[in-house]
Structures are given as structure tokens and as C-alpha cells.
């Protein structure tokens, strides 16, 4: 019985620490970024409201938006995007909702609460599983 009590007590501690670890590493929304007053590394999950490609500046600007209208301008190198995705951004290469990791620089202008210099664009695989299967080699 002592063993079971010890196990239950340690399990509670593990659950608590595990829950904190998982939730603290979860994604932030655009409006949550407003709490930062200095440049911070963030992982943000947002809807892509607009995409602008600036080939002369080798830049892609993703306009990320929240449900309450908060916006962040997320910047990524066009050449890097093309080397990863094979083509410039379009509906076939960028999903409506994305997860991006990078450095957030707060600076308010209009609806935008700052800019995000993207280090990585992360894509979930959920939508792939809805596609019909293919085979080949």
C-alpha cells in the first residue's frame, strides 16, 4: 500500500510538471504577442490574411491575423521559401493557418502589433491525410 501511495503522489507531481511543460511550449496567438515589449523568440499560430511577394527585395510578407483583428507582418526570404517549397507562395504551398517560429519585434502601426522575422515556417500534416492516396517509385 505504501508503494501505491508513493506512486500516486509522484504521478501527480509528474502530471503537473508535464502539463506545465506541454502548455508552456504550446503556440501563441497573434494577440498574445501584444504582451511583449522587447524582441522575443516566439512560435505563433495564426491565419494567413494576405501574402505579398517582393522579388526585388527577396522577401515574402505574410500578414498574420487573429480572430479579434490583431495583425503581425511576418517576413521570410523568398529564395529560401522557393528552395524549400519548390515555388513562390500560393494556395498550394501555404495553408490558411500556419505555425511560424521567429523573433517578434513589437512596433504598433495600424492593426499591426509588430513584425515577425521568421526563422521557420512549420506546417501540420493534418490536411495531407485528407488527400487521396498515391503510389509510385
Amino acid at each position, binding site marked *: 500500500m505504501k508503494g501505491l501511495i508513493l506512486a500516486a503522489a509522484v504521478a501527480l507531481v509528474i502530471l503537473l510538471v508535464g502539463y506545465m511543460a*506541454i502548455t508552456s511550449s*504550446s503556440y501563441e496567438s497573434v494577440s498574445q504577442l501584444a504582451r511583449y515589449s522587447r524582441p522575443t523568440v516566439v512560435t505563433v499560430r495564426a491565419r494567413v490574411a494576405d501574402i505579398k511577394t517582393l522579388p526585388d527585395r527577396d522577401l515574402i510578407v505574410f500578414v498574420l491575423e487573429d480572430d479579434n483583428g490583431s495583425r503581425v507582418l511576418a517576413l521570410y526570404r523568398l529564395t529560401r521559401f522557393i528552395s524549400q517549397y519548390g*515555388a513562390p507562395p500560393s494556395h498550394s504551398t501555404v495553408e490558411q493557418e500556419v505555425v511560424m517560429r521567429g523573433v517578434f519585434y513589437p512596433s504598433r502601426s495600424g492593426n499591426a502589433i509588430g513584425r515577425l522575422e521568421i526563422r521557420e515556417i512549420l506546417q501540420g500534416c493534418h490536411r495531407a491525410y485528407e488527400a487521396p*492516396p498515391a503510389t509510385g517509385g
Partner: protein
Amino acid sequence: MRKLVAALAALSMVDSATLWISQTAGPFPSVVPLGNPTAYRNLYIHVPISVATYLLFTLGFALALLYLLRGRRWMDGAAHSFIISGLIFGFSTLVTGMIWASESWGSPWNWDPRETGVLFMFLAFLVYLAVRSSIRDPDVRPRVSMAFAVAAYATIPLSFLVPYLMPSLHPTLPETGMFVRGGTTPLIFGGRVALVSAEGVVLALLMWKGGAGRRAWLATLPVLLAGLVIVSLQIPPNMARERPSGDTFKVRVISGSLLNETLELRVRGDSGTYILLYRGDPPIKPLFVTFGGQKRLTLEKHWLLVRGSVEDGRIVASSLRLVPYWGNAVNSLIYALTLLALALVSGRVNQESNLGLIPGDAK
């Protein structure tokens, strides 16, 4: 012991065949958000290893709980074997997942909630190992370490349920199930999950019984052989140069169409985009699908190994082959090495716990 080795050898033979089939003919999603679509053949490697990890830890937990309730020493040894096996499979889960994520998610490690959960699970059971090793008293050690093993199991539901509770790059079971539903996919996927899990359990049982020495690792060699063959066949196409010149090179498909039985593809090489023309059997089936209300070319985002020539700035291909994602081959080998590692350590882990304590032996 002989029956277990024979079972392992038989499972390993069938497993090597399914590993080969899954990596050369296994279906993959025809439209993917990012990366080489063939990277999704990791579904037949990474997912079965992770299912086996959960199963091994669950069996270890059940035996540890039984030990705490009934106090039989053999349960302690058996639980320890399943947990060690779970740790080795768990490490393999993390590594194979990172290799897949680097292609399909855009980064090998993302602190995705499920990733964090599985890492936390792995670390919790590593702490179990440290706790068990640090206690010298043979009466106290099983009691404390089995209590910790039961507690560490709290990380399993936590890591499993995370994609259901918060946004995650990992799919949920119903989402994966949407893909694993038609054609040969359920057979290959289900077969791989069953085989990998069964091998994990047999290896854990062998470990509990004190290992079978050379016979155990010899029994896993068919899988290693399959892994090595997959590596030798799938890595070289990845190393082909991207410059469309000479006889053989690789390019990446951006878009394309089929006109009068000629496939006209817009492809990217290392020095820009090209038009590629090809008449012949396409290297993928089907060539087009309707997805999200749009007709989509399934060759999009694939790397192609091209045999042909460049004429007037256009590539005229005589043959096309899909270039499989290199990480699938590496993961096949990692999986084979996981089984081999487990077989090699099976005789060394549990000797002290098992001395005369296996059911049927003198107590």
C-alpha cells in the same frame, strides 16, 4: 526461450518484407502541404514504432502495478524488461519523428505539444532507470522503482491526448484514419503496427528471460538486411546533381499538365526553372486528383530522377523516377538497428533481477 527466438525470427522475416513493400510501394498522400510527399511513407515506420513504445510502457506499467499489489519478484523483472524495451523504442520514436518532421513540418524539432509530451515521457522513464540503478538494497529497489514506474506512466495519457486538447502539428487518430482507409494502406499500415509491436513484446520477453545471446540478434538480421538494401537503393538518387545536364539529374516539380499524352512539367533545377517534356508511363498513380475542389497534379513537390537531354532549353526525358525522401531509408535503418540493439542488450539488462525468479523456476 527457443520458442521466443523462433517467433522473433519468423516475425523478423515477415517484418523485413513489409518494411521493403512499405518503402517501395506503400501509398502516400497525393497532396501534401510541405516537402517531398514520399516522406509520408514514414507513416509505416515512425507510427508503428511509437505504437510499440506506448504498448511496451503500458505492459511495464501493468506489471509494475501488479508487483505493488501482489509483491511477486518476477513481476519486477518483467516490468523492468518492458520499460527498458520501451525506452529503446521511445528513443527510436523521437529520432525517426525528427527526421520525418525536418521534411514534412519544416524543422526537426518544434516543441510541438506531442513532441514535448513524448520527450517528457522518455525522460520520466530515464529517471526511473536512474532511480532503480541508484538503490543498492535488493528489497527496497523493486518497491521504489516499481512505484516510480507506475507514476511515470502518467506521462503516457498526457503525451497521447495532447493533440486532442490543444493545437498540434501532430494529427489525431481520426485524422490519420482518414488516410488509412482504402486500397492496400490499411493492410500495410496495420500489418506494420502489429509486427513492430509483436517484435517489441517478444524482445522484451527475451530480455526478461535473460536473453538468447547470439540467436536473438541473428533473428533480427532480416530486418537489418532490408534496411541496408533500402538505404543502398534510395540514398543514391537523392545525391544526383540538380543541374539539368549530362545523362541523369534530379529536378523538383512545380506544376504541369498532360497534353496529347505528353507530360509537360515546370520543374526547378539548381539554376532556375525548366520545361520538362515526357511521353511514357508517369512515375506516379494517379497523375491527377481532385482535392479541395481543385484538380491537382500529384507530381507537385516531388523530386524526379530524370534520364534525358536538354534541347533548346527544354528537358526531353526518356525516363522519370520519383526520388524517395532520404529520411525514409535512414529511418528504416534506424528501426532495424533498434531491434538489433534490443536483441544485443537483452542478455545483459536483467540478469540480477531474474535469478531464479521467473515463474516456473525455483523461488
